[in-house]
Structures are given as structure tokens and as C-alpha cells.
């Protein structure tokens, strides 16, 4: 089956991975971690000489993006954990990305240096000034190849824009602006301007006692630079048009599924909170993740999602325990494949799930070192609730809830996925050409 034969590469990083993001071509893969570090992987060009190592990812660059800070006004620490990384579309030889922690967004420029000039007239090889009397002729310095050096430098620091914790950043399709969203507000920035941002959404109530809903995620439409969506802790999505007003508090469209009164419990609201929202590559659909499901929404239909997939419905009877140990607040991300035909999301026990929208088939896979023996195929897993149990099934009561896959990413064009499991980054690639598209 197309899901089975995968090449697997595992990296052990020094800290818990907090975000994973491919760039627009898929050549680069960035991870951010809890310690404020960014590690970038680059895909090696396919080589005819070594067909077995075709197109694998290796470490390209590592840098410290954010440091812990102290907010003296509130007497609270500001974590250096990288919440999100977003790549800018590449416009010249350099690569650029935005990285953010809870409070500050930074624009980083990544450049390569693989040549250096040699043969200066006034300086010698070590850079010391030459004695001019020894200079008898002039030469033109030439560029000589050197070992590749990747240089990363911070080009902009967008600070002091947020009172609350930033949960999302999204680069606009105009490539000039981007937005950052915290629990209550969304700001629009120009990439070249750091001392000013425009507030485009503000849901902070006049009286904080009345606060019952927060912003959980936000994203620009991939093609329409005036449209963006934000999700809330009550499970609603709001599509906003920046042309309509400066402050987009009135949504253009409100996407909300009516609650099923028969399944209502004290945990209904919590499990309806949307933890991630992603536009499809086509721009026609949105994908949302809440605690137990992933949903596909058609931008033309606000009343309900067009597709709903159960990620781990066997947890529905365990919600009280999951509330007690705080797992019910875990924020899982979701992802589309390049052709918008398959969606993916993480779960517990280092499981991740893929749903094929066309065939309606789904699969549960595990990211673990135990399953990564040579020549092993990636075996589908199954969780059983009790009753008939097949060999290799996992009982729901033996799931490890400390092993959660919150962050996953899909290559923009190919069947390559990146899965973050605590400190481990797994990169799965198809061995054979897949007909998934």
C-alpha cells in the first residue's frame, strides 16, 4: 500500500521541538525548540551516483533565535520557546524566515558563503597590512571556493506588539506584510517596519470579567491578500476581509457547527476549541483541528464542515481524566498534503493519523525508534477499546499520553512529512513514486 514503504530518518535534537515548517519549495525544513533554538535542515540534491540517498535532509544551520527574558512590570518570565516559524517566499539568493516566541517576532536572513576573495594588494593572507615598499605590481583579487558557510543574521526585531501570548504568525501573499495573533488581538506588520503595527482584530472585552473566548490560531488566505481567518476557543472560525474596515472585528463569514445536544457534556466546549487552522493550497478549503477531530470546511459554506474525521474517538469516554491531567488542553496541529487530497494530524503514544479525502481511508502510524529497524515497513497501528483484539493492537488504557505529536508538516509538493515527537524529528519519505496525487 502506498502508506507502507517509507524511508525514515530520525534526528535527536537537544530540546523539545515546538514547531516544524517546510519552506515554499520544500528544500529547507526548519524546527524551533523549547530552548529558543532554530535548526534548519536542507534536502540534498538527488544524485545519480548514490540513488539510495536521494533527496535526504541533513542539518544545514543552527542558531539561537530567542533568549529567555524577564518582564519586570509583571514579574514574570518570558519563555524563549519558539512558538512558530514561517518562511518568507524566496526573493533572492538568501532565505528568510520569521520566528516568534510568546512576545517577540524576529526576521532572520540566511545566506551562504562558498567563495572568498584572495590576492589583495594591500593586505597579506592573514589580513595584515603589507609594507607598501614590497608591492611591486598590482593584481586583481580573485574569488576562490571555500567550504560552505551558512550565515544567519537577525534583520528585524518586531517587539512590544503583544500584551498576550503570540500563538500564530502568517505571511501575506503580498510578501510585504504579515500578521501575528495572540489570545485577544491580531496585528498586521510590514516586514520592513518594526516600530509600528496595525491592530486588525481585538476581541478583548471592556470588562475582563466578561472574557469567555480567545483567539487560538490565525492564517492569511494563500492567494487573496485581503482575507484571513482566525479560530476561537469556542470552535468557531471567522473569515475577515481587510478591505471592509480597518478593524476587522466584524467578520465577513462565521463558520460554526451547531452543537449536538445529545452529546453535550461539561467538556463539550473544551474539546470544540480549535487548536489549528490551515487553508488548503487551493485556497478553497480550511482544515481545523479540535481535540478529537479534524474538519474540512468549504469557504462557501458556513453552516457546517463538509468533512469530519475522528482522530481518536476512543478518548471520548476518558475526557474527565484528560481534563484532570491537563491533556485535554493539548494543542495539536494539522496539515494538508500538496494536492489537498490527504490530511494529517498527530495524536498520543507517538501516533499520527492520515486521512485520504478521496478514498475515505485512514491510517494510524507510529513515530518511534523501535519501529525503525532496517528493512522494516511502517506498520499501521490500531487502538482497541476492548472486545476483539488483534495482535499488535494497543489498548486505549496503555497509551502513553506523555508522547504526543503536536507538530507535523508536509512537504509542499512531495510525499515527505516531518513529525516532531518530543526531542525527535522524524522525516518520512516515500521510497517509490506514489500515485497519491
Amino acid at each position, binding site marked *: 500500500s502506498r502508506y507502507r514503504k517509507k524511508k525514515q*530518518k530520525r534526528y535527536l*535534537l537537544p530540546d523539545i521541538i515546538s514547531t516544524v515548517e517546510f519552506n515554499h519549495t520544500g528544500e529547507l525544513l526548519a524546527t524551533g525548540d523549547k530552548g529558543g533554538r532554530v535548526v534548519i535542515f536542507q534536502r540534498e540534491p538527488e544524485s545519480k551516483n548514490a540513488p539510495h540517498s536521494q533527496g535526504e535532509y541533513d542539518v544545514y544551520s543552527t542558531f539561537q533565535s530567542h533568549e529567555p527574558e524577564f518582564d519586570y512590570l509583571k514579574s514574570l518570565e518570558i519563555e524563549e520557546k519558539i512558538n512558530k516559524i514561517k518562511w518568507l517566499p524566496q526573493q533572492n539568493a538568501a532565505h528568510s524566515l520569521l520566528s516568534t516566541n510568546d512576545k517577540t517576532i524576529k526576521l532572520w536572513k540566511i545566506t551562504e558563503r562558498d567563495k572568498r576573495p584572495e590576492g589583495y594588494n594591500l593586505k597579506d593572507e592573514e589580513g595584515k597590512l603589507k609594507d607598501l615598499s614590497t608591492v611591486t605590481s598590482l593584481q586583481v583579487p580573485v574569488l576562490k571556493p571555500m567550504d560552505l558557510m551558512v550565515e544567519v543574521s537577525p534583520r528585524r526585531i518586531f517587539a512590544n506588539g503583544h500584551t498576550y501570548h503570540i500563538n500564530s504568525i502568517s505571511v501575506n501573499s503580498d510578501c510585504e506584510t504579515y500578521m501575528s495573533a495572540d489570545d485577544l488581538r491580531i496585528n498586521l506588520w510590514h516586514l520592513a517596519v518594526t516600530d509600528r503595527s496595525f491592530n486588525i482584530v481585538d476581541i478583548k472585552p471592556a470588562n475582563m470579567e466578561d472574557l469567555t473566548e480567545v483567539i487560538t490560531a490565525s492564517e492569511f488566505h494563500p492567494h487573496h491578500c485581503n482575507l484571513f481567518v482566525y479560530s476561537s476557543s469556542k470552535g468557531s472560525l471567522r473569515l475577515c476581509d481587510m478591505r471592509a474596515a480597518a478593524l476587522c472585528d466584524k467578520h465577513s463569514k462565521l463558520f460554526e457547527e451547531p452543537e449536538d445536544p445529545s452529546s453535550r457534556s461539561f467538556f463539550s466546549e*473544551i474539546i470544540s476549541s480549535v487548536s489549528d487552522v490551515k487553508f488548503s493550497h487551493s485556497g478553497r478549503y480550511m482544515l481545523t483541528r479540535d481535540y478529537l477531530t479534524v474538519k474540512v470546511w468549504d469557504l462557501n459554506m458556513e453552516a457546517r464542515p463538509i468533512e469530519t474525521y475522528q482522530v481518536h474517538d476512543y478518548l471520548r469516554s476518558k475526557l474527565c481524566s484528560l481534563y484532570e491531567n491537563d491533556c485535554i488542553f493539548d494543542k495539536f496541529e494539522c496539515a494538508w498534503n500538496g494536492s489537498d487530497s490527504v490530511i494529517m494530524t498527530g495524536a498520543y503514544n507517538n501516533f499520527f493519523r492520515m486521512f485520504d479525502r478521496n478514498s475515505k481511508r485512514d491510517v494510524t502510524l507510529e513515530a518511534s525508534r523501535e519501529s525503525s529497524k532496517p528493512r522494516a515497513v511502517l506498520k499501521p497501528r490500531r487502538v482497541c477499546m476492548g472486545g476483539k483484539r488483534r495482535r499488535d493492537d494497543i489498548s486505549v488504557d496503555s497509551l502513553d499520553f*506523555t508522547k504526543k505529536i503536536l507538530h507535523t508538516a508536509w512537504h509542499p509538493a512531495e510525499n515527505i512529512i516531518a513529525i516532531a515527537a518530543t526531542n525527535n524529528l522524524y522525516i518520512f519519505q516515500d521510497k517509490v513514486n506514489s500515485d497519491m496525487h
Partner: protein
Amino acid sequence: MFARGLKRKCVDQEDDGEGALAGFGTIPSYSLQRQSLLDMSLVKLQLCHMLVEPNLCRSVLIANTVRQIQEEMTRDGVGQGAAPQSTGRAPLDRLVSTEILCRTVRGPEAGCPVPDLGDGPLQGPLPEICTVDAAEVPRSPQSNPWEMDSPRESRGSFQKSLDQIFETLEHKNHSSMEDLFSDMDSSYYDLDTVLTGMMTSAKPGLCDGLEGFAAAAPPPGSTCKSDLAEVDHVVEILVET
């Protein structure tokens, strides 16, 4: 109306406990479980003196859960003490600000131990309920104790903002506060017992618990600023061919 897992244990007091819980004693009634859920939620909101700002989304969701429980309890006519019906905000009467919860149960105590915040989903042993600064005094019942203008938000710590979310609006006097706590199982305030009880207690806890769920040890990843050049050395590559 309750989570399915709890419904299974919602047998009347008259019935014998059956199934897996037989022999562990009486299965708690729905209202007792609901009360326990309320207690648990209030405890969750009391993360005093955290080093890092608590997650606002989580706090809001828990607060909404508290409100829902309170509203249902009011509708059922089960009050925590007297139920003033005059104002439309009656359910909020039941909401107790975190500081009052601290003060009433434990009496004045100096400070609060800094909690050890593990990385796992199960927080490490939480400190016992602490009091807030002695400077905080009970406010006159009629006035709105909290000025909601924005300078407050920037002045105080986030904990104060959280208090603003859950304040007791019209508790008339201390006696209603006693009523508030009269039917609360005081053992819940010994958090160490609660957390240990979750793991080892023979009594039927609020939740079945997940057998496979063990107390999380913080993941091995360290947050030390190791030399970045060493990243390559610690990176392990496993390639399946």
C-alpha cells in the same frame, strides 16, 4: 449530560457498586462528582506565583467550565449556600475568587512555595493552597471591587487579571462563605493527597484514571544552552534502507 465515563459510575446510592469498582466502596453520585469536578476546576485555576504567565486559553476554558457547572447546580436548585435570585448574575455569585479560596481554607500564611513546573502534562506536586498578599482586604459587598480600567492590567501581575475573571460579586458576608465551603470535602485542599490519591487510592476517584498513564517525568531534553557546534555530535541519524 455528563461525560460518558462518569455516567457509567453514576449509580444511585442505593445500588451496590458493581463491576470493576465493586469492593472499593460506594460509587459517587452524580452531584458529588459534579461537585468534585467543580473543586478540581477551581484548584486548576489557582496556579499562584507561577514564574511564567499561565495560559490564557486554558484559564478561560476552565473558567467557562466552572460557570457551566455553577449554572447547572443553580438550575438544579443545589446551592452552595443561599441562592439570591434578585440579580441576573446569580450564577456568578458562586464563583469564588482564587484569593478568597486561599485565605479561607488555610488562614494567613506567608508566601507560597514556587511550584516545580514539570514539562509533562501532569504537573509535579503542586504547592498547598497559598494566600495572596496580606494587603488584599475583603471589599465592601456593594461596590465593584475591581476597577476594570486598562491601567490595572498593566500594573498588576497576570494573576490579578485572572482574579478579575473570577470574582465574587455579591457575597454578602462571611457566613455565606462558610456555606460555600461547608459541603466541600476539605481533603481536596491537600493537593499532595489529591494527586497521590489519583494514582494509588482505593476509593473510586472522580475519574477512572487511565491505567497506562504514569506520572510524567520531564523529558530528557535539557534547556541548557549547549554549544551549538555540538548539535551535530548529539544528532543521531537512523536511516532505514
